[in-house]
């Protein structure tokens, strides 16, 4: 009887959790060739929050984004978006789902043969039958939101890295997605552009009620913008919580990562044979 009741409780808890979570990742396994990337990863993305996926390079943060958007398929485990397992979707359903996503790629991934204006207009022209007048209106609004209305007629090659990323953000927002995904939005930006992007992420999230997912290893920037952070390591979630909680965490790994210490659980050296032996050893090869 007691067991039954506790199960009911779990069930009830799961129900409420389901409503809060827009994306749920359950027991995710994924390998690239013989190298395992994820070994039973579990994570929830809360609706309306800014969630950060952090971790040292090579822990598969970008891979996780590609799994969430089904650009890649997991070896096993489930990824649920609003309770629907995305592995089961047909191509047309997948495309329907993807219209709810906006993704900001690391380098912007603007279409190089189109102007800034046409880049932002691209998803609108593809998916809506809006009149040119209306499209112009929407595009200019989105460009204005990222401060680049004046660059509408420029080509992607004329933009700086920070500008390209802002255009890409405007494009990702063009169709008013529910979920915005940022892949390393802070890499290679000068402090001013970085501040601009950080503020934009927060503003989009709060003003439009979007759910945001940020992949990054810039601890300081993420701390200012994220509600919840997941620290990935060795194929699973090593720690999760608000930036303040992570900062206080006692785990060696979390402390090493959050405070940028050179050596710790994540070794400075990549796996290698013994140094002295390799230097002094005969030239066997």
């Amino acid at each position: 009887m007691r067991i039954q009741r506790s199960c009911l409780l779990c069930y009830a808890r799961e129900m409420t959790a389901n409503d809060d979570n827009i994306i749920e990742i359950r027991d995710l396994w994924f390998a690239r060739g013989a190298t395992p990337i994820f070994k039973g990863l579990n994570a929830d993305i809360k609706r309306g929050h800014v969630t950060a996926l952090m971790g040292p390079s090579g822990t598969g943060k970008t891979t996780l984004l590609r799994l969430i958007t089904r650009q890649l398929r997991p070896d096993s485990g489930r990824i649920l978006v609003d309770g629907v397992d995305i592995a089961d979707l047909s191509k047309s359903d997948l495309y329907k789902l993807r219209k709810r996503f906006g993704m900001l790629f690391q380098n912007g991934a603007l279409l190089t043969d189109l102007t800034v204006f046409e880049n932002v207009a691209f998803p609108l022209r593809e998916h809506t039958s809006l009149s040119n007048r209306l499209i112009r209106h929407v595009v200019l609004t989105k460009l204005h939101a990222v401060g680049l209305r004046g660059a509408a007629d420029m080509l992607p090659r004329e933009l700086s890295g920070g500008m390209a990323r802002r255009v890409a953000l405007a494009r990702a927002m063009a169709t008013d997605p529910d979920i915005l995904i940022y892949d390393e939005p802070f890499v290679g930006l000068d402090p001013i552009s970085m501040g601009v992007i950080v503020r934009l992420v927060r503003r989009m999230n709060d003003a439009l009620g979007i759910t945001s997912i940020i992949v990054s290893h810039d601890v300081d920037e993420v701390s200012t913008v994220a509600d919840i952070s997941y620290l990935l390591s060795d194929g699973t979630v090593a720690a999760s919580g608000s930036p303040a909680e992570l900062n206080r965490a006692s785990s060696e790994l979390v402390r090493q990562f959050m405070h940028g210490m050179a050596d710790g659980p994540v070794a400075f050296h990549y796996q290698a044979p013994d140094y002295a032996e390799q230097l002094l050893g005969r030239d066997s090869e």
Partner: protein
Amino acid sequence: MLREAYVSLVVFVRTFGALTLFLLELIVQVPRVFVRRFPLIVAQVYNAGSLSLVIIMVCGAFVGGVLALQGYANLTRFNAEDAVGIFAGFALIKELGPVITALLFAGRAGTALASEIGLMKATDQLAAMEMMAVDPVRRVVVPRFLGGVIAMPLLVAVFSMIGLLGAHMVGVMLLNIDVGAFWQQMQSTLGLRDVMEGILKSIVFGIIASLLAVWEGYNAIPTAEGVSRATTRTVVLTAIAVLISDFMITAWFLR
């Protein structure tokens, strides 16, 4: 040794199968793309055609000229220099027009297509389209494929025409072959069947050259090295495939 041969045979059969499926996928998409993205196709015909037009006109003129020279040098031994027109016409319309155009197309437009698509892949543009729920095959690959397929017969026609003019210039104006004999003999000997052979070849080569270019670009390893390899392979594979299929079509027409 035997094992290696077996492995490469398996790889070949697999690649060929994947290529065939890719072609079928493109063909299935063609009507839809034709209706919904017609301006893109026009742009790609212009792109592939205009890229190759100058090189094809220059080469056509000189190939025609060489044919007239060689034809004259050999036919004059039999006092048959009037037949230079027939010789140049047959060679250009049935063989050299389609084949050389296809090879030039691969070198000029094919490489551009492969590297463009490869670079779009390397810079995540294709992935970005996927994420915007736009099928890159429909948006990027099919229009480029169709552009090449439509442009090739037009380019072949231009090549053969300029080639005949080149032969006329060298044969009639330089070597003083009788202009009436030159054109009249060509006209009476070259039949519809010969022209059809040239047209069929131009269509087949257009499909081969465009398919291999978009295939190599779409499947390029998304790095600088991968894109450069894809570009090279486009030219090499197109040359081989065009020459093999040329032999087969010729044999079929002579049966």
